[in-house]
């Protein structure tokens, strides 16, 4: 009995240690973002919002946030649309070369980001599209669509296959059935995909760095500040980015976990 309890306590401790390992740097960054000292040393100085004020008054940071917001919003909408179409064709149709099609659709996240960034830069500059905000969007859509597809595909797999046919059977055209059955059923997954792709795009550095040119996103400006000097502004920006992404991911996770009634 006591051996069992010891194991239980050990496992609990293990979980705590793992989470501490993962989150300690982020927590440290969060704590130091409110610390008055210039260098991250212990003991801490006094509490201050100075670093938040600094970034708040820095037009470059504002611009980066605006860029990131535009890019991630556009990316989320386009990537989710493409992901939905891919997931639906997979759900609905059987055709020659389907596994190749699916493999290709899921491929982008497996490519190292640096390679992807380089390749994107090469392609976009050749067609005269590099260094613009939309070049980041294009690159991020490629990167994010597979995530959207995976989430929506999961939801479609939970759907009673008779549901869409039942709509046709009751007089719905294919488009009507799409609007009246497929979209309402997949709605939680669609919102989850929007959040997830927005979060991925908001965080993404490597590809954005290659193709962004003068239109810097938040991760890119973080690196620039970091390259200049040690500046606790980074902690403040980092904390905001972390909270934004985490919120999006948690919302997505909650929506994905709302279980679909399989047969009703």
């Amino acid at each position, binding site marked *: 009995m006591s051996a069992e309890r010891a194991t239980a306590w050990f496992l609990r401790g293990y979980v705590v240690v793992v989470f501490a390992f993962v989150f300690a740097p982020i927590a440290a960054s969060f704590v130091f973002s409110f610390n008055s000292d210039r260098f991250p040393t212990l003991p801490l100085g006094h509490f201050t919002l100075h670093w938040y004020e600094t970034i708040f008054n820095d037009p470059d940071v504002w611009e980066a946030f605006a860029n990131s917001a535009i890019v991630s919003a556009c990316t989320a909408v386009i990537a989710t649309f493409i992901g939905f179409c891919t997931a639906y064709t997979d759900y609905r149709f059987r055709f020659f070369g389907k596994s190749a099609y699916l493999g290709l659709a899921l491929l982008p996240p497996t490519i190292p980001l640096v390679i992807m960034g380089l390749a994107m830069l090469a392609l976009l500059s050749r067609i005269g599209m590099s260094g613009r905000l939309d070049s980041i969007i294009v690159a991020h859509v490629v990167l994010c669509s597979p995530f959207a597809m995976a989430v929506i595909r999961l939801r479609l797999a939970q759907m009673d296959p008779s549901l869409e046919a039942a709509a046709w059977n*009751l*007089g*719905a*055209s294919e488009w*009507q059935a799409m609007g009246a059955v497929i979209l309402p059923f997949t709605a939680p997954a669609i919102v989850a995909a929007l959040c997830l792709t927005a979060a991925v795009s908001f965080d993404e550095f490597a590809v954005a760095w290659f193709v962004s040119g003068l239109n810097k996103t938040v991760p890119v400006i973080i690196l620039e500040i970091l390259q200049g000097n040690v500046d606790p502004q980074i902690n403040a920006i980092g904390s905001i980015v972390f909270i934004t992404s985490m919120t999006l991911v948690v919302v997505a996770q909650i929506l994905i976990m709302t279980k679909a009634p399989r047969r*009703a």
Partner: protein
Amino acid sequence: MPEPGHEPLVVFEGVTRRFGDTVAVERMDLAIGEGEFVAIMGSSGCGKTTTLRMLAGLERPSEGEIRIEGRRVNELSPAERDTPMVWQTLALFPFLDVRRNVEFGLRMRGIPAPARREKAMAWLDRMEIAELADRDVAQLSGGQRQRVALARALVTEPRILLLDEPMSALDANLVVRMQAVLARLQRDLGITFVYVTHSQSEAFAMADRVVIMSRGVVEQIGTPQQVYRSPANRFVAEFVGANNIISGIVTDYREGVVTAETALGMLRATVTGDVARTPGGGITFVVGADRIALSGQPAGAGNEVRLALISEEFIGSVVTLHFEASDGSPFRAQKQQRELDTLALEVGATMWASWPAEDVHVLPGE
């Protein structure tokens, strides 16, 4: 039954459906009349569901023609025909409440909201579930869902309703109740029901005619009585009811009575119609298990075989007795419980079974 002279409501003419190399339905000819309750019956994979799906437009025939109301429908999409279906899974929309589920067909046809609401409520009322109108479908019991599915399919007032094993998820008690509901509904509405099932009791309890299918081929079409008493072939005789099937060689044929040498002894059968038999040819007798008389002693009459009792099986008031015949083949008899009171039923006991020659059905063409 379809009336002669004008086209029945639904006609299958030489309809074949292939999936790759497999033939799901082969050269099917079937006519279904207005207001008829037809059950298509067979084991899984026999093509019964494919037949129904072709009628609904969810599958397209590879060959042949399907006509509804005299019009070729092969090329029509499901939405272009009015053939609503009650699905095996019921396929209620989980994101809509009960009333909106029922309204769905009307909404797709562009009926304005107040009118479709009124109609949906009328149907929910008719199905005796009006009080559930605002519920989520996930909150309903199996029987209630069934009623919602029926209301949803019938709300557009079709001339034909398709049902694909709609009761397979219900427990036995509920099945009997829903059978009564369905049969009454069909009579009251006077529309055609095409009901696909693997269950003989469901088919026989409700249908005017049954279609028995096996491996894509129609084996027999007829009233439950005809199929039960006069199976068209060995498959139907084995599939339907509790029949004893005995094969032998004809030894004598005169005055409408054929005598054959079988593994169980010399047996006789009255032959009607053109089923003439010549001595030396093969013949197959079908004897319904409910036509068997049992006795502890041989009576010395014709058509009597000696059996050893193996087991008893109670189904309500009816008892099925399983025997082994002298050649080791199985033999079945069905009796009312009270008819068995006078018999000593012990496993292993020797008994004699007999039946009148008139109660023997002779399989044609075998």
